[in-house]
C-alpha cells in the first residue's frame, strides 16, 4: 500500500481504490495494475467509508463543513466530503465498509462522517463528538443497496467495482457471534447481488473465491483474507478491471501469451497442439493452442461411484484480439500463468524485449473435450 500514490482530490482518468483491506491487499498491490497495462496506470487511494457517507461524498460539493470542527476531527470530515471517484475511470469499494458502526452526524449541519478504525480522539474531539454530534448506528442492507444504486447513478461513466464479503469469520470462542456475522454478510451480499442485477457495476465475488480455498484457513477477519486468498481475489479483480477496457494492453507493441486459468482445479496441464506457428498472423477468434488439464478427480470425488482419476479436460485457447506470433516457447508441460508465446502488433518486432510490465495477450477459452 505504501508505494501506491495517495490522493483524495482528483481521480481523473485513473483508478481509485478505497483503503479497505480486501481491496488494497488484492488489486491494490504495488505494480499489479501497471503490469497488465502497456502504460502507467494512475492509481489513487481514498479512505474507505460506508455507503451513506460515500453518497454524501459524491454529492457534488454541496456539503458545508461545519465551522466548529476541532483539529482532531478534520481528517474525518475531509474523508466524508472530498472524493476523486467521480472523475476516475474505475472505482473499487468493498462491502466491508458497511460493517462500520462509527458513523456520526453533525447535529447542526447534518453532515455525516466516519471515525476511522483505531482512531483515539483527544479530549476536545471527544467532547465535540458527544455534544455536537450523534451516532447514526449500523446501516440497513436495503439502505446499502439504495446507496449503491445512487452511487452508480452519480458516477456516470466511472465504472464501480464492488467486493462482496466472505460470509465466514473464524468463530474463536463465540460461535454465536460468528454465525450472526455470517447472517449479516449474507444479507449484504444479497443486497449487492440484487442491486448489481439492476445497475451497472462489477462484483468481485470474494465470498466464492475464499470459499474455494477454504474460508476456515483463509479468512482472518471480516473483509481481511490470507495472502493466498488475496492473490486469487486480485486475479479475478484485475481481470474484471481489464475487461472494462481501462488498462489498454495494446498500448504496448508486444504482449505475452500466458496459460489462462479456467477454474481452480486447472492449475497445470500439457499443450497438446499448437494451431499457429511463429510468424503467423492472429485474428480475434483464432484457435491458438489446445491444453489438456488432468488430475480432476477431486472435483468429482463427491459424486457417488464415479472414479475420475484419469479424467482429462481439453480446452482451446482462443485469441481475443489481433497480432502476430513472434515466438513460441518449446515447453509442453505448463502451469497457469506460464508464458508460452510473445505476440506483437507487427511481425517485424523483436520478441526478446519483453519485461515484467509487458501486458498479457487477451484470450478466451473453449471447452474442446471433457
Amino acid at each position: 500500500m505504501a508505494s501506491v500514490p495517495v490522493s483524495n482530490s482528483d481521480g481523473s482518468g485513473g483508478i481509485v481504490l478505497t483503503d479497505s483491506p480486501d481491496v488494497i491487499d488484492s488489486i491494490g498491490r504495488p505494480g499489479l495494475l501497471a503490469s497488465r497495462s502497456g502504460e502507467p496506470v494512475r492509481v489513487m487511494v481514498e479512505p474507505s467509508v460506508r455507503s451513506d457517507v460515500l453518497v454524501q461524498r459524491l454529492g457534488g460539493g454541496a456539503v458545508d463543513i461545519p465551522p466548529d470542527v476541532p483539529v482532531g476531527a478534520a481528517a474525518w470530515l475531509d474523508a466524508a466530503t472530498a472524493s476523486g471517484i467521480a472523475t476516475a475511470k474505475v472505482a473499487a469499494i468493498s462491502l466491508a465498509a458497511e460493517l462500520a458502526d462509527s458513523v456520526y452526524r453533525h447535529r447542526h449541519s447534518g453532515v455525516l462522517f466516519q471515525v476511522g478504525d483505531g482512531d483515539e480522539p483527544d479530549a476536545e474531539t471527544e467532547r465535540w463528538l458527544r455534544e455536537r454530534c450523534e451516532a447514526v448506528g449500523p446501516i440497513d442492507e436495503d439502505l446499502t443497496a439504495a446507496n449503491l444504486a445512487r452511487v452508480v447513478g452519480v458516477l456516470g461513466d466511472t465504472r464501480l467495482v464492488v467486493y462482496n464479503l466472505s460470509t465466514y469469520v473464524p468463530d474463536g470462542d463465540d460461535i454465536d457471534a460468528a454465525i450472526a456475522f455470517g447472517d449479516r454478510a449474507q444479507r449484504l451480499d444479497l443486497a449487492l447481488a440484487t442491486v448489481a442485477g439492476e445497475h451497472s457495476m462489477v462484483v468481485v465475488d470474494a465470498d466464492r473465491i475464499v470459499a474455494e480455498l477454504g474460508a476456515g484457513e483463509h479468512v482472518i477477519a471480516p473483509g481481511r483474507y490470507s495472502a493466498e486468498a488475496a492473490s486469487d481475489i486480485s486475479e479475478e479483480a484485475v481481470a474484471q478491471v481489464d475487461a472494462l477496457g481501462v488498462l489498454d494492453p495494446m498500448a504496448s507493441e508486444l504482449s505475452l501469451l500466458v496459460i489462462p486459468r479456467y477454474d481452480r482445479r486447472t492449475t497445470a496441464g500439457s499443450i497438446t497442439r499448437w494451431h499457429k506457428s511463429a510468424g503467423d498472423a492472429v485474428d480475434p477468434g483464432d484457435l491458438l493452442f489446445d491444453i489438456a488439464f488432468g488430475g480432476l478427480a477431486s472435483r468429482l470425488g463427491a459424486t457417488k461411484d464415479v472414479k475420475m482419476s484419469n479424467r482429462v479436460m481439453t480446452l482451446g485457447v482462443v485469441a481475443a484480439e489481433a497480432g502476430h506470433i513472434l515466438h513460441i516457447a518449446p515447453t509442453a508441460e505448463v502451469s497457469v500463468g506460464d508464458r508460452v508465446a510473445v505476440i506483437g502488433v507487427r511481425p517485424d518486432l523483436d520478441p526478446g524485449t519483453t519485461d515484467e510490465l509487458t501486458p498479457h495477450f487477451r484470450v478466451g477459452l473453449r471447452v474442446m473435450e471433457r
Partner: protein
Amino acid sequence: MSGSAGGGRPTNPLSLKIVRRMFGRLSGPEQTLRRVRNTVRMQRGRPIQRTNVFVGNVRAKRKVGIYGFGGCDLTFLTGVGQLLQPRLDASLCIQRASAVHGARSDFVLQALDRVDGPVLDEVVDKLGLDPAAFTSTLFEPRFAVPDHNRLGTYPKDIVVLSVAADLSRTLYRHRTDGLLVDPGGWWLNADMTQVLGDLDRVKWFSATFKKLGKVSLDGYLDNLTRIVAELRSRTGAVVVVCNTLVVDPGAAAVDYQFANSPATVRRRQFAIGLRQTADAAGFLVLDVDRVTKATGISGQADFVHYTPDQKQALRREFMRLVERHTTLLGS
C-alpha cells in the same frame, strides 16, 4: 466394522466384490448378501452403516432415532452414527428417507391434506412413481429400519430437513384433481428411449398437468412453518433444517456474470429466510453454507454434493447442535 475411519464411506468386502463381478451391481444376490452380512454384524453387536441407514447397539433397551428427509445433501447424516453412538447408552438409528424429488415443502404437506383416490392411482401407474411418496410417513412418530423389521421401530427424536428441494424442484398440478406431482423419478431414472418412445404418456402428462414452477420464498417459509409445527406436535422431535452452499463451486474464473446468476441469489434469499424464521417456527438451522465454505468448496461437483471432508465437518456441526440444543446426551 469394515469402514473408513471417521465415518467415511465403508469399503466393500471381498465377498461383495465377487458377487458384483458375477451378477453386476445391486443384483438380487448382492442384496441378499448385504442382508445376511448386516444380520451377522448386528448379532455381534456391531453397527450397520449404509448410505441411508445407521443402526448401532441393537441390544440396548433405550432407542434413539434421527430421521432425515431430503435428497443427496443429507447423505452426511448416517455418518453421525460413528460420532454419536459411542456417547449414547441406547441403540441409535439414523435413517435418510425420501429423495430430492419427494421433498419439496408443498408436496410434503399434500400428504397431510388429501386422501388416496383413483387419480393418484392412475398418476402413480403412468409416471412410475413410488406411492409411498404420497403418504405422510414423515409425520409418523416412529420409523422402522429398512430390511430389519424385527428391530422394531425407533422414535423420531430429531428430524432433519433440507431446503434443497424447494430451491431446485419444479412441481406439476393435476388440472382437475389438484394433485401435485414431481415426476423427477420417472424422467430422471427411466431409459429416455422408453420415455420418448411412449408419446401417448408424454401427451397425457402435458394435457393433464400444469406446471407450477418453483416455490416462492414466502411460500416455502409458510409451508416449512406448518411442517415443523406438525412434526413437533405429532412426533415431539427436535427439527433441524439444513441450508445449502449459496455460491457455485468450481465457477469458472472467466465467468463474471455473478449478478446474472439468479440461482445463487435464490440460495442466499432462502438461507437468510431460514435464519429469520427459525426461532419463531421452532427449528434449528444447520448452517451448511458456513461449514462447507470453511472446509473448502473446490472439490464439490455442485452446491448440494459434498466432499468427504465437508461431510465430516457437517457431522461435527450436527453434533454441536445435538450437544447444545437437545437432551440426548444428558443436560
